[in-house]
């Protein structure tokens, strides 16, 4: 027993000694100059802000809060991290019964319907109208604005918005004689690219696959939006009427899944399974796959990882693939800031003041440059720091162009549903089961998933009392 204890303690000691040696860290991605927190000013009103974005991006949120707190002394925003987007909405659900709610909350779009149904929300549009600031809405990125407008009312202030991209290894494209500079691609082209980019050794073993595949509900939504198809009926829930059924067993939904499955079966794409996004990005930056689907917010992380990996991967982006003649565009995903009616009138004013601050072009430019999300107001693009950011990351311009490809319609805007998170799980499970051979066709798999989704949707609508 003693030996074990001594051994364990010595391991700990070695670790401590190693820490104190402070070995030089690897060349790391540069972190922005941090903006330090300021102490709460005497007599200021406290505004409680719940947010669900952790890690490096959460650190930038804290800097935005610090910027706000140091810009004035009437209000003091107290940021409280709530573990994740899911946990934030769960905590709000519980808080609805007890009144323990924040003044401002960052909620992902999957929570939009739930927040509206809570009845504790002050729509941002009302406050903008009161202060004569509706021109801010006109300046908002149309795709972003549409994402948080339900029944013609902007309920929350968009904060972090991104879209999905097809990441490519430009070096591999050039080597294979493909054009990495034409972002608009069809399914057939991507299939051709995947074949051309797949490299085999002398024994026929694949060294590099063309494409990485993993199930993700957000991509399914993108494909529907690109092809002007509602994913949920009626009207993606955007006309003030709750959706009553899902539609992702549509021809385009089936085509998307069959397209990916076909490439995997052909041996030119590799399937990473449920939650395989991480594995796929790792393979991408190491040059083991040449194309990879991910959010534009991943751009900086992928570029710096590719540099560190040293496999000669040159990160580029293309639009999400489409059928010839498709006229839609990708949707925007992310989170927005909601103002609640809890607390004193001063606190509510403070909450609004903080949200107004986040909509300023210079704050949006700071946010965008340090994270990789879109600025939600277009005025931000005119600022020098934003232009410098675009120069450093020309790939980002492709992402901006992609969400401006088409006029905004309900068909190419993210849907609103009470069972947003569960529906994605149903889809992901069906996708995975099809890839594992449990279904004969994508149609069969998606039909089964839609049946479960619709059942839960009906239950939600009954419970909430539509």
């Amino acid at each position, binding site marked *: 027993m003693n030996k074990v204890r001594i051994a364990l303690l010595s391991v700990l000691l070695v670790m401590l000694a190693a820490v104190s040696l402070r070995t030089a860290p690897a060349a790391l991605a540069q972190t922005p100059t941090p903006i330090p927190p300021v102490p709460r000013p005497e007599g200021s009103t406290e505004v409680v802000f719940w947010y669900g974005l952790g890690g490096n991006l959460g650190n930038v949120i804290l800097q935005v809060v610090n910027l706000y707190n140091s810009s004035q002394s009437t209000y003091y925003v107290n940021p409280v991290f709530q*573990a994740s987007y899911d946990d934030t909405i769960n905590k709000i659900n519980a808080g609805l019964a007890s009144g323990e709610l924040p003044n401002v909350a960052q909620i992902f779009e999957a929570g939009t319907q739930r927040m509206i149904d809570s009845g504790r929300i002050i729509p941002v549009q009302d406050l903008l109208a009161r202060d004569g600031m509706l021109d801010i809405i006109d300046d908002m990125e149309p795709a972003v604005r549409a994402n948080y407008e339900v029944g013609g009312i902007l309920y929350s202030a968009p904060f972090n918005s991104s879209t999905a991209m097809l990441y490519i290894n430009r070096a591999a494209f050039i080597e294979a004689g493909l054009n990495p500079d034409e972002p608009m691609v069809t399914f057939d082209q991507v299939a051709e690219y995947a074949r051309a980019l797949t490299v085999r050794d002398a024994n026929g073993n694949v060294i590099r696959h063309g494409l990485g595949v993993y199930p993700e509900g957000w991509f399914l939504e993108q494909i529907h939006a690109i092809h002007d198809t509602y994913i949920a009926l009626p009207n993606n829930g955007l006309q003030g009427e709750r959706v009553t059924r899902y539609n992702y067993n549509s021809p385009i939904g089936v085509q998307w899944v069959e397209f990916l499955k076909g490439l995997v079966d052909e041996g030119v794409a590799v399937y990473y399974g449920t939650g395989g996004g991480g594995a796929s990005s790792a393979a991408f930056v190491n040059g083991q796959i040449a194309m990879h689907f991910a959010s534009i917010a991943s751009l900086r992380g992928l570029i710096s990882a590719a540099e560190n990996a040293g496999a000669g991967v040159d990160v580029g982006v293309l639009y999400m693939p489409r059928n010839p003649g498709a006229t839609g565009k990708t949707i925007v995903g992310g989170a927005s800031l909601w103002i609640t009616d809890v607390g004193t009138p001063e606190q509510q004013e403070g909450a609004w003041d903080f949200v107004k601050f986040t909509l300023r072009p210079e704050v949006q430019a700071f946010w965008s440059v340090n994270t990789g999300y879109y600025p939600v107001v277009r005025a931000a693009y005119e600022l020098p720091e934003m232009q410098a950011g675009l120069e450093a990351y020309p790939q980002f311009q492709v992402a901006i162009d992609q969400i401006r490809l088409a006029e905004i319609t309900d068909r190419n805007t993210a849907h609103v549903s009470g069972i947003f998170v569960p529906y994605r799980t149903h889809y992901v499970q069906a996708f995975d089961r099809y890839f594992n051979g449990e279904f004969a066709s994508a149609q069969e798999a998606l039909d089964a998933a839609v049946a479960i989704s619709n059942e839960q949707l009906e239950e939600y609508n009954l419970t909430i009392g539509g």
Partner: protein
Amino acid sequence: MKVSGSLLRGFISYQTGVYILLIVVSVILLSPLLFSLSLALQGPTVAPSIIPRDLTNLDWRVFIRVFEEQPVIIRWIVNSFVAAFGVTLGVLVSSSLFAYVLAYFDFPGKTLLFFIALGSLMVPFEATLIPNYLLVTQWGWTNSYQGLIVPFIASGFGIFLMRQYFLTLPRELYDAAMVDGCSRFRYLWLVLLPLSRPALATLAVYTFLGTWNQFYWPLLVTSATEWRTTQVGITIFRNFEGGAIFNTQMAATLIVMVPTLLLLVLGQRQLVSGLTAGALKG
């Protein structure tokens, strides 16, 4: 000579075999920890490998960065300790007292009481979550140790475990003590509890770890950063949008594990002797 030589060799190879087996098993058991350490030391990358590619260039500063980014992590560890100790102590006291009554005294409604205690095992945590939460908020116990501790200080499982254990001890001990004029409380304190150390130790470890690992309840009843427990607190290191980078997350996880590991290492003798004490008594 020949025979004993081959015996010796046989013994040595047997020993080597055992050690190789033990090493293999311990590597398997430790692999999640080693993997976390490996991820922590590879810097902020979305593409870590299982074993760091460059062993001379490890980012040990990541552990310091965890404390720099969230100095409050020390407070989270303290919170977790206070809550887990509080709940464990409460469960040990309440379970022993209740089980003592159930095992040694006869009174009307005893069976009913026992079944109520057992019945509480059948009600899932999720069902009592909201009522508990409403009560705790109404009492103003959010962001407090009592909010983290009080809802868990009685446990149906603990009562059941202790009652069953008490019943295995000879009734004659109790009768003899009573004949000698021992008070009931003194019997519990001086005879019953020392004899029940194995059961108490099991219950204590089970309760401590269960409370230490709680996530949803602490998340609900704390809404200030300094009142979080470790499990809720360290989620702040998780990157999930814009690329999964694991280094600080894994470093923070390892840091919050150290106190429980130390407790285990230092308390192991107590625990093991407690368990074997019961086994040897036969």
